[in-house]
């Protein structure tokens, strides 16, 4: 019953052109059969004689029926006759199915106004989401304060390890290099005034107040922020979050709070190290390029940096860490759809965090300046 598909012979019977088919008719034979049918002289019916056909594959039968409908729409006729029981059996499989063309979605075209409206609604929804998240988080915090045993305290250790220890090499490397670059750039300028000793001030203060916390936050956002969003997003998509709820766990206490706490702890910790290696990097450049003695460098750092400078940086780092954790968890829990939804959440997490970091940095710096903390 197998055999290659072919047209055994063709005949004109009155008005009709008859093709005698043979072998196994499958999807790959259809383009050829389509060309053969199209090449027949225009008037009259086309008749496919299926008597010699061994096998008609199901997909090919669907296409034959479509051709029949198309021919009818064009005022011609495509017919078939005969066929052994297996072939008829496959043709019968498609009897009575609706025409798919009726099921096509109506094309939707969006105007400017429509797009604007949708964007506004999305913004409103986003704000609602933030409020709902804040509310649920506050409730989780209160509950944890009342009954600390409900929290996954032991889970925090693992999270701190993943977000902190594993990020240590990249944090140290990047901040060391940043310190070197800062030192070099400011030395070029200060040399003009013979004030190279102030390189130490510039490097250490900017590392402590700005660059340390910010660089660490950016690294942690890229690593852990994206990671947490993808993790929670996948859990959401696979109904794991819903399952947790049915088991009597609040996902905010169980998943969100530990992550926020972990990052609020890790980012300041990494910042301390970042400031230290950044200043060290600055010294390396200064010693190599400006012939500064290491002791002179550290004396200068010691005399300009107050505890408040470092404190200000650490407060920033704390806020950054909590923000990264919150945004990542919020976006993760808001994931919808499948794998693509997880990708969207992860992307929007990183973008939102980067924007918020800059915004918060500006706000906190302004507040410090206003209240003369560490200025």
């Amino acid at each position, binding site marked *: 019953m197998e055999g290659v598909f072919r047209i055994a012979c063709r005949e004109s019977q009155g008005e009709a052109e008859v093709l005698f088919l043979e072998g196994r008719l499958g999807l790959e034979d259809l383009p050829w059969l389509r060309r053969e049918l199209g090449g027949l002289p225009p008037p009259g019916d086309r008749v496919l004689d299926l008597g010699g056909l061994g096998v008609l594959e*199901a*997909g090919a039968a669907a*296409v034959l*029926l479509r051709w029949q409908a198309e021919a009818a729409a064009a005022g011609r006729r495509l017919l078939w006759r005969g066929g052994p029981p297996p072939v008829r059996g496959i043709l019968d499989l498609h009897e009575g199915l609706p025409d798919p063309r009726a099921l096509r979605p109506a094309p939707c075209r969006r105007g400017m106004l429509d797009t604007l409206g949708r964007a506004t609604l999305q913004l409103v929804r986003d704000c609602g989401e933030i409020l709902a998240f804040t509310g649920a988080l506050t409730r989780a915090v209160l509950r944890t304060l009342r009954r600390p045993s409900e929290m996954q305290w032991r889970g925090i250790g693992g999270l701190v390890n993943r977000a902190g220890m594993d990020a240590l090499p990249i944090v140290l490397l990047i901040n060391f290099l940043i310190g070197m670059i800062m030192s070099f750039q400011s030395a070029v300028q200060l040399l003009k005034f013979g004030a190279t000793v102030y390189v130490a001030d510039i490097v250490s203060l900017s590392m402590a107040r700005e660059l340390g916390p910010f660089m660490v936050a950016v690294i942690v956002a890229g690593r852990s922020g994206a990671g947490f969003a993808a993790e929670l997003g996948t859990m959401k998509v696979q109904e794991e979050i819903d399952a947790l709820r049915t088991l009597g766990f609040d996902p905010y206490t169980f998943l969100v709070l530990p992550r926020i706490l972990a990052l609020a702890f890790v980012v300041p910790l990494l910042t301390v190290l970042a400031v230290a290696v950044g200043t060290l990097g600055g010294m390396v450049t200064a010693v190599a390029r400006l012939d500064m003695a290491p002791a002179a460098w550290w004396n200068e750092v010691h005399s300009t940096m107050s505890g408040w400078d470092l404190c200000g940086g650490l407060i920033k780092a704390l806020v950054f860490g909590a923000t990264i954790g919150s945004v990542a968890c919020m976006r993760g829990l808001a994931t919808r759809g499948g794998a693509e939804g997880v990708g969207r959440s992860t992307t929007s997490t990183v973008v939102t965090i980067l924007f918020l970091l800059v915004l918060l940095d500006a706000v906190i710096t302004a507040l410090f300046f206003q209240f003369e903390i560490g200025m």
Partner: protein
Amino acid sequence: MKVEPGVAVQVVGLSVGWSQEPLLVDLSFEVRRGSIFAILGGSGSGKSTLFRHLIGLEAPLTGRVEIAGVGDPLQARGRPRFGVLFQSSGLLGSWTLGANLELPLRRWTALEPEEREAVVCARLGQVGLCGYQNHLPAELSGGMRKRGGIARALVLDPELVFLDEPGAGLDPVTAAQLDDLILTLNRNLGLTVVLVTHELASIERLVEDCILLDREEKGILARGDPRQLRVESPDPRVRAFFQPETLSTPAVP
């Protein structure tokens, strides 16, 4: 090694499992062309694992699998010669159901868009999903996703399909319609079907040949026609699998 004529899948000395801990040892069996073959066994007996080896997703510890017209499925390239339904359906989540079915047609056939649409709709109609081509998998029920997965496994009209629990999660009527479809394709196209299933009703109706896997034995407990095994097997474990109602029920005090 070439498969013998009349054989669709040949398994020789296959051991599967994880490095230190083989799950199934030294399996040998063959699936005849045009037959409906079932892999049976208790939950966790290694059916899905064997299934993944049959379709060439995993390399066996020892032994080999040969598929007629393909050879070693691990090395299979080009137009897929067999269709696969995964236990969790495996539909692409960010594509509509229709796009999921159209994807292989677009890649492996030279059909016009209109013709592809006709094939997709007919295939979905066969599994009772006509009109759902514009839905995302996330917008379908579990049983509907399963049926969508079956439609996608069949869309290229392969001569061999592997189905992991096609009837799981379906109501009895839909499950019976699915069995009808499998029978129709098997009778009229000579489709060879290798399926993993627990549904005794479908086993009764469809399956001509089976192997029954067992966790303790690390291999095949019984093989043959389930209708015969059911009554004639000397092993009480085999009879119990096919007739769970004969297991003694605890007396109600």
